[in-house]
């Protein structure tokens, strides 16, 4: 495997992980544009813009984009998060040049009025769809409650009102600022023809307007900490979501914190699993880390029968307390490391995963650690590190959101 990085004259970063043994080529544009970059008036614009990149460019109609993606057999998709928008596709190696050309073209969409107003309806359908599928909407509501006015509190999809109020002009201006080559990374992994790639990208992006994207200047961490329950809607199940502090993407303690979260709340074999899932008390009880540039969160999610909510919640809080009082054992740490390392090793064989790995690392750090180096960082975590992170990031400083019919369990 050969990792290499390049910076084009226009500022675009290109990272490549070439492995001739792979059977596919995975390509992704990582744009530093997400919900945290939006003002209140622009709420939802990053995600809406992601849709619009599929709706046509000066060279292609939406139909032509979709047809060509399917013609290349491209397993193509896009995702928008709090800090990034990612466009990616995986193809047979023989289609490398074509997919790079197509994705590059999509980064400069036409943003025509007609397409804008048709797609606006699709976005409103997407928002409605998630409202019908609790606890999907809960995540964004909880982020808002936890982060308050911090930019990470902005909902990725926006709201009905903010999406309906967006205009093509405002979107064009946002695109101009954020989709500048200096604000983007192109990641390519799998079987890669590197000289061809560089020649293609140089040619395809040379006329992209170069502007300096506004820098992000966020305070560290949430503005609201405490216990608060919000009942958001009726559902047949009861869901409880919780956010607590966690390390940021730049915090050296993040490996230890991820292992601590696995010991406490991985979806199998964790303390939460044995007490709440294996016993059949909950359908789901799991904890995951979300790391951002300025801060991080530990999100816990519980799903259960409404009548069991009080018992489950009490047991969950007792387990949290117990986690601080009865510190993890060497054996628990060994299990967590085995799982983390096995999962990294397996994922590493798939071109698309490699592309996400190098792209995410580069757009965040501007540097790259191999899978072996990351595995070594996990291996080095000690029990003392685990204990330190549980004290640094106390789970009881949390924001809680309950969704469902049982409002009495508090």
């Amino acid at each position, binding site marked *: 495997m050969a990792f290499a990085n390049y910076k084009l004259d226009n500022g675009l970063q290109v990272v490549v992980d070439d492995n001739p*043994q792979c*059977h*596919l080529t995975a390509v992704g544009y990582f744009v530093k544009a997400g919900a945290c970059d939006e003002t209140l008036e622009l709420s939802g614009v990053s995600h809406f813009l992601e849709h619009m990149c*599929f709706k046509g460019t000066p060279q292609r109609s*939406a*139909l032509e984009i*979709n*047809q060509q*993606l*399917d*013609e*290349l*057999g*491209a*397993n*193509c998709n896009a995702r928008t998060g709090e800090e990034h928008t990612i466009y990616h596709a*995986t*193809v*047979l190696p023989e289609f490398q040049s074509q997919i790079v050309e197509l994705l590059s073209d999509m980064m400069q969409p036409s943003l025509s009025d007609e397409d804008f107003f*048709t*797609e*606006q*309806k*699709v976005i*409103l*359908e*997407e928002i*409605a*769809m998630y*409202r*019908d*599928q*609790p606890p999907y909407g809960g995540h964004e509501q909880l982020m808002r409650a936890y982060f308050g006015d911090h930019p990470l509190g902005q909902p990725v999809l926006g709201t009905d009102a903010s999406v309906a109020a967006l205009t093509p002009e405002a979107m064009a201006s946002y695109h101009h600022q954020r989709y500048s080559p200096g604000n983007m990374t192109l990641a390519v992994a799998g079987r890669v023809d590197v000289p061809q790639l560089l020649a293609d990208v140089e040619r395809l992006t040379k006329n992209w307007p170069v502007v300096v994207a506004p820098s992000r200047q966020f305070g560290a961490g949430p503005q609201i900490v405490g216990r608060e329950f919000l009942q958001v809607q009726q*559902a*047949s*199940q009861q869901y409880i979501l919780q956010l607590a502090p966690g390390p940021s993407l730049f915090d050296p303690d993040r490996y230890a914190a991820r292992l601590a979260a696995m010991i406490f709340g991985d979806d*199998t*074999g964790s303390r939460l699993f044995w007490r709440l*899932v*294996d*016993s*059949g*008390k*909950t*359908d789901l009880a799991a904890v995951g880390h979300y790391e951002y540039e300025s801060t991080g969160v530990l999100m816990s999610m519980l*799903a*259960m*029968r409404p009548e069991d909510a009080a018992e489950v919640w009490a047991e969950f809080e007792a387990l949290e307390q117990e986690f601080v009082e009865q510190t993890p054992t060497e054996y628990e740490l*060994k*299990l967590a490391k*085995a*799982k983390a*390392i*096995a*999962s990294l*090793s*397996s994922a590493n*064989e*798939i*071109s698309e995963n490699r592309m996400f790995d190098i792209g995410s690392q580069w757009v965040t750090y501007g540097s790259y650690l191999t899978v072996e180096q990351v595995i070594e960082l996990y291996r080095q975590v000690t029990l003392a590190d685990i204990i330190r992170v549980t004290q640094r990031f106390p789970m009881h400083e949390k924001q809680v959101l309950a969704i469902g019919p049982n409002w009495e369990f508090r």
Partner: protein
Amino acid sequence: MPVDNQFQHRCANGLVVLGETMPWLNTAAFSLQFRAGSAYQPLGQNGLAALTCEMTERGCGEYNNRQFLEATELLGASTANHVGTYHTGYSGSCLHENFLPVLELYAKLSRAARLPVDELEAARLVCLQELYSQQDDLPQQTLRTLRERFFGPTLGRWPDGEIDELESAAWSQIRDFYWERFSPEGMILAIAGNFNWTECLEKIESLWGDWSATPPSSFAMTPGQGGYQHLQEDSQQTHIAMAAPTIPFGQEDYFLIRCAVGVLGDGMSSRLFQEVREKRGLCYSVFAGIHSLLDTACITAYSGTTAARAQETLDTIAAEFSRLQQGIHEDELRRIKVQVRTGLMAQQESCRARAGAIASDWFYLHRVRSKQEINEQLNRLSVPRVNQYLADHPIEVSSVVTVGSAQLELPHGLCQL
């Protein structure tokens, strides 16, 4: 056509072992299938297969529940189980050096499950929780209802079970189901990835070779029913699903109809995506596919849309079903061919996906197709052949299910069978 990295072996007791070596990987994977799917449950006991599967994971041989899971985790194995219409299956992958010890654990699970009585209520709750959680998933409820209607009570049963039938399942029924259905008769073990075939086969023979088979059993088929069913829900969106009978996977012309349905609703350039979402902005999600069982199959389509636009969505989908009858075009076929080829290559990067595909091929076709064979099949496909098939075999939607705040009006031609 024999391929030098594909292997197969039938043990004396009936167990079929299939292998495909992928030496460029560091991992190896297995897919272990028993004829213990939902179709084999007695009527009125839907959920028995799922509950039995859950109970098999609660201890075997010298391991209790927790020791078993931790043993797999220490070996770095990522594992899962699945109950389908015909099979209860277990799958897993790990670094190649741990592969044989992981197989040993699963031999123990399949042959010496403890089925501990004192874990029954917890296991039952785990299965029930899965069903409770689906109550908030309206797209899934819609597709579940469609499946039950179209395939009937034996084959159409949702493999996760029914709440009341799960609640009444007794330990003795689980024991009997396990003893009857977990047997080398009809069992498939597919392995793929980085392993040595001779060494693996020897191990597999030592783990399962002396296991005696129980006589095979079958199930009684019950017919499905057509027509329109609406489920009232106070939801933002109306969910629409429909099914039309077609030929199952394994029949000679399957690839022809698979291509046509791909053109209809698979991918962003598909007709449904273009007409329903891209041109009209009616929905976020719309697709069509084939749901194939062994001897029966249907073309299904789904969309979810806000109530005010549901009728137009249904009408547009129905119109696209009709238009498909008139045939597909060269460019559409070309796109489908590349999609299939890319999917095949994706399996070459994931031994877990490959092991699953090998097991499925064996069950449906009694052989494993090589990449070359599928490519040749693809090359033989042509627009005139697909269109002739469509002209000779009209697609007639026989079942429609909607879930939402208001019933819809069926366009002409739907559910006329």
